[in-house]
């Protein structure tokens, strides 16, 4: 075990830190600490500018292979970048769906033509992607999607409805799971299509969420089209491609998220010191427990990063379950520490009709953490079946 950074890693960190200090200023100052989960629809246009500035300096997609425009840095450097980015207050990455989901999918499953057409826009920060997976009747049971695509005159014609699509109003493209063979069994007959968002036949309806914001949207496809060759992998083999996408996440961003949580934790400690809760032995227990949990989140991620990708340890299987539950419990603790004050939203004069504090947003939004991207229940099934080898439920 060696928990120290190498000389190369230290100088990489210095480079990242210096660049951010120099560039995340001026008109971008207002973005600091904003645009994360629960806040993804904040100042999108400015964040798109920022995304292009990042791209021009070569900071998008640093882990990608060089031939696809990346820097091919090792995983630990990606971690260091993400940590520095959070430390500097870097805003939620508007291009993250392209960089972490669609890009790796195309690199792995896409044709050379697809790679040439779509990857540069992600790398230079000019094009934004969104994800079209969930549907009203395909949540935990994702394979139950009903959106269809039919090939007509060299184009896929799409009908159906997607839901929980972040950034839909701003995205240039969407990767959409569609049923392309209705006669096939559930997991078969699905194709993975790349669809331009700015066309007739697509209607976007924002979903107002518990915080009053509208990070997510419903996307209705009513005869929207995409070219025949915009299918990733083979036709009717989209399920395998989609599952591949989910496997690309290997913990580099978990550490950045852990650091984001650390910032929220620091806010709670500051509040406790201000209002006297820090002297209360019962709350001290809970604050210490949260701190230990946060530390373990980091250690788990470091373990995940330290194993070869071929032998992903069991500690990777529960990362989502762990952080989402930690964050849910933490939100509750934050409110308890604030006491009566926990109710007070931001004053109406300066802010909108319903503008919450950072900790209130965190408290509320954390309730979705245990639901999206695989509910707690689904996560426990996966851990039980894949990591422990317990038998599946009879279907």
């Amino acid at each position, binding site marked *: 075990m060696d928990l120290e950074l190498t000389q190369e890693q230290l100088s990489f960190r210095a480079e990242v830190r210096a660049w951010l200090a120099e560039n995340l200023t001026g008109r971008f100052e207002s973005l600091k600490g904003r645009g994360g989960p629960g806040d993804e629809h904040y100042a999108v246009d400015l964040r798109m500018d920022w995304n292009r500035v990042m791209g021009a300096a070569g900071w998008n997609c640093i882990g990608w292979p060089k031939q696809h425009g990346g820097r091919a840095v090792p995983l630990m450097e990606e971690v260091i970048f993400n940590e520095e980015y959070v430390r500097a207050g870097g805003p939620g990455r508007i291009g993250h769906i392209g960089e972490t989901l669609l890009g790796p999918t195309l690199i792995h499953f896409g044709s050379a033509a697809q790679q040439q057409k779509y990857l540069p826009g992600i790398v230079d920060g000019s094009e934004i992607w969104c994800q079209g997976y969930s549907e009203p009747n395909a949540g*935990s049971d994702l394979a139950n999607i009903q959106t269809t695509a039919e090939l007509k005159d060299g184009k896929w014609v799409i009908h159906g409805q997607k839901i*929980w699509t972040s950034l839909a109003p701003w995205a240039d493209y969407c990767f959409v799971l569609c049923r392309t063979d209705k006669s096939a069994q559930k997991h078969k007959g699905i194709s993975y299509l790349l669809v331009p968002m700015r066309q007739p036949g697509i209607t976007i309806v924002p979903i107002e969420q*518990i915080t009053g914001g509208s990070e997510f949207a419903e996307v209705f496809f009513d005869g929207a089209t995409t070219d025949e060759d915009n299918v990733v992998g083979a036709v009717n083999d989209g399920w395998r491609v989609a599952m591949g996408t989910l496997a690309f996440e290997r913990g580099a961003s978990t550490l950045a998220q852990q650091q984001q949580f650390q910032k929220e934790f620091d806010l709670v400690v500051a509040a406790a010191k201000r209002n006297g809760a820090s002297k209360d032995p019962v709350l001290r227990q809970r604050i210490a427990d949260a701190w230990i949990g946060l530390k373990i989140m980091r250690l788990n991620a470091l373990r995940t990063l330290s194993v070869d990708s071929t032998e992903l340890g069991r500690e990777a299987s529960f990362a989502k379950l762990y952080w989402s539950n930690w964050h*849910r419990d933490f939100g*509750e603790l934050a409110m308890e520490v604030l006491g009566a004050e926990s109710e007070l939203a931001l004053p109406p004069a300066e802010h909108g009709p319903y503008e919450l504090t950072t900790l209130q947003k965190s408290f509320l939004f954390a309730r979705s953490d245990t*639901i999206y991207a695989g509910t707690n229940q689904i996560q*426990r099934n996966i851990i039980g079946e894949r990591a422990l080898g317990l038998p599946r439920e009879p279907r």
Partner: protein
Amino acid sequence: MEFRFTEDQNELRSQARRFLAAESTAAHVDKAMKTELGYDPDVWARVAGELGWPGLVIPEAYEGIGLGQLDLHPLLEEMGRHVFCAPFFSTVCLGANALLVAGTTAQKQAHLPAIAAGELTATLGYRGPSAPALAEGASAVTLVAEERAAGFTLTGDVSYVVDGHSAGLLIVAAWVGDESSGELGLFALPGDTAGLTRTYLPTMDQTRRLASLRFDGVQLDKDARLTGMEGGRALSVILDLAAVGLAAEQVGAAEACLDMAVEYAKVRQQFGRPIGSFQSIKHICADMLLKVECARSAAFYASAVAAQLMADMEGGKLTEQKGRELAEAASSAKAYCSDAFFHCAGQSIQVHGGIGFTWEHAAHLYFKRAQSSRALLGSAQHHRERVATLLGLGDEA
């Protein structure tokens, strides 16, 4: 020995459920919570006029219906169940109770008939904005009442006052002289008293309004002070009665969360079967049921103790023992019901999945209400510590 609701109480519950199902729908709540007043005055007028609820526990001598705190219980459960936006909790559980506990006959005569008639709303404020987070009751009071020949001068702040920006009658707790006097006084004053500034405070839970009150040398007559019971003791009894009422509300709201979750789990299909057929969802619902019914036991018992105490007080034979019983029952109920409601509201979102955290679905109203009810009148932790003290823990040395 009988521990169940009477026919009359069940009838009151049915009446309330019928009315609120029609007049406190999701659309009503959404509309009311976006106004600064926080409720629909027309609906409130009907509540008072047609149903007489504001006068339910006001004795007939003061033109009320003369029922007891126990009869309030099913009504409050239903209000919680429907997230009813109205100044009922503030006016009845805080305001009217304060007058009943601490008012002189003249003071009761002056205000209770108007409350019973629905013409006057009322509330109670006690917490100073600068009070430590964990202070509660008298120890959270920072307002000071200086005694003059002709009356009192009130200076300082009171915050977190339920419906404090709109209540017609404010009752506030203040240290007489200063805090070191150890003498707490309760004072009743009209909402539009000169020198008083009221500020509406936007809250995370938009279904219950809070306000802050700034007293800038407010002059009150001698008879503004409620002298029917010593102020510190009175504040404790009033807050216990309010906590019992809040607990009843929490029970009804928690049950609404359970019911929503169960209904959804029966119809929502994933993997070709209703999600309620999966053990994970089924067991979440089972645990919610357990908490709802345990909360009901705790709150209903506390309501019974509250009813006995009020009866004893009317009969002029209120004992220390009864006050202690109320404290124990109220703190137990508030602690348990706060946690139970919060648990159910959170789990209801979990069972609903994605739609559970949309604004469109009512689940978020309950979740926010659960959080605000938990913070109101002292946290569960505060109330458990109080129970520990009442059990004599820590007294031994």
